[in-house]
């Protein structure tokens, strides 16, 4: 414990501290957006967005290294690619009448392909693994500032549109009959998901991010009766699992992303078993 505290406070080794703080900050958006995404059954759409983010990362690294454009960081590249693919997917789900899942899977793969081509053209060797599965070394002080800003924006939107998102997630057809702007909300939720995915990208990577978005919500769903409570519990569970996962990865000297995801899964399995046992006991009493 003492060693862990020293690693946390070490002024010459800020990575662990940054990773911890960014995990806590990203969890706020993850719990809120994840609750909407899981209850609306659109996790696969967010999967397509998160994977196509690699195109933006690749393009940003290519421009930085080939043309020395320092302003374009992989974070901004990922953010732009995520938002662009959110708009494309929103339009596809509105205007394409058949085979939507196939087209969305194609966007998923094309995004990754474009990203890999840009990385191949980038001078020097860049390991895509750190973007795909996360690397806490990618987190900088500047990104923590970005996380705070994005958290505030996402919190504001999520609460301002709470009744409308609630209606849209529960019964989209009825929401349309009540003049709720369903297409706008769908696009907004996809854009918020894109932003959230990019926030958690350095921690768990763009492939594993889907698990951390949905597993805390699945755990919380077993205990709560309201969407607002689902959000609160998901935020706390996301904070808890990412912190435990981070400490675990430090102790075991393993990459943080996979450990965080496995921690979430263990909590999910334990909570499911607990709920079943509780139900059985109640039945016999």
């Amino acid at each position, binding site marked *: 414990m003492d060693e862990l505290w020293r690693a946390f406070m070490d002024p010459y080794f800020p990575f662990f501290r940054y990773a911890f703080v960014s995990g806590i900050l990203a969890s706020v958006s993850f719990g809120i957006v994840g609750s909407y995404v899981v209850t609306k059954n659109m996790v696969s759409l967010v999967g397509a967005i998160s994977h196509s983010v690699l195109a933006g990362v690749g393009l940003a690294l290519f421009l930085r290294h080939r043309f020395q454009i320092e302003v374009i960081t992989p974070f901004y590249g990922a953010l732009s690619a995520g938002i662009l693919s959110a708009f494309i997917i929103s339009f596809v789900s509105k205007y394409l009448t058949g085979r939507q899942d196939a087209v969305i899977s194609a966007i998923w793969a094309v995004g990754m392909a474009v990203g890999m081509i840009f990385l191949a053209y980038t001078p020097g060797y860049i390991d895509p693994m750190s973007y795909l599965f996360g690397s806490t070394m990618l987190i900088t002080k500047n990104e923590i500032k970005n996380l705070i800003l994005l958290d505030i924006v996402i919190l504001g939107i999520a609460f301002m549109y*709470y*009744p*409308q998102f*609630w209606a849209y997630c529960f019964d989209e*057809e009825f929401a349309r009959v009540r*003049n709720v702007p369903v297409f706008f909300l769908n696009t907004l939720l996809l854009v918020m998901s894109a932003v959230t995915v990019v926030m958690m990208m350095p921690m768990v990577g763009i492939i594993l991010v889907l698990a951390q978005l949905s597993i805390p919500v699945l755990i919380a769903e077993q205990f709560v009766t*309201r969407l607002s409570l689902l959000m609160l519990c998901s935020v706390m569970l996301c904070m808890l699992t990412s912190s435990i996962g981070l400490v675990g990865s430090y102790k075991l000297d393993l990459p943080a992303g996979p450990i965080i995801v496995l921690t979430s899964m263990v909590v999910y399995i334990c909570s499911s078993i607990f709920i079943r046992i509780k139900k059985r006991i109640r039945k016999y009493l």
Partner: protein
Amino acid sequence: MGLLKNSEKNTLSSGQRNSPLPAVCIRDLYFSYQKENILENVNLDITSHEFVSIIGPNGSGKTTLLKLILGLLQPQRGTLHVFGEKPEYRRDKIGYVPQYFQLDLSFPATVLEVVLMGLIHKKQWFFYSSSAKKKALEVLDIVGLRSLSGEMFRNLSGGQRQRVLIARALVSQPEILLFDEPTAHVDTVAEKNLMDLLKQISGMLTVVLVSHDLGFVSKYVDTVVCVNRTVQKHPTNALTGAMIQELYGSHIELVHHEIVQPQERHYHG
């Protein structure tokens, strides 16, 4: 289910302005999905305070007609007006009750929250007001579910869920209520209770219900709209076996259901 109390009648009818305009007016309407005509040359008037059932075989276009009246679909030709205007501009006057099993039951929703959804509009931000909650509880009283307002929607029976959806449609004080198969997937006793409730509500507003069970609804509704690409409207008592045979294309007889109340059981230990 007893008769509605005076205060409950006020809750339902205070939104009504007793429009002189017909509730629904359809002229020369055509609708098609991918070049295949679903509805052809439809002309239909539904007057204010009428209790109407839309019937027809599978694929006849009855749900399409309902969605056109809701403004969820647009006709390729012809006009459709609800209280004198396009349905999109009259949604404040329209109440809609979908089939409850279309909803995602794993969604964490309480009964009160589902009813409050009926009050949502474009600029409903942050949270619902306490007066909205009061209104929702009043309407839950009408459908007999006030005591279950804090219960989770998924824990209710089929008949109770349908009642909650009726309350959700009523809470915005509509002038026309549209139902999509209200008695599908509910047992016979719950079906009769639901129809009794609809009969009471129908005295105060226009009620249109899509149903597959003509024998059952014919005991309650004033008018039947037969849909099979085209539309014909008949008073319920003028409906004959020949008309139904023509509609469904096979020999079908009108049979009235008998509701058998479950008998009290005595257990001997």
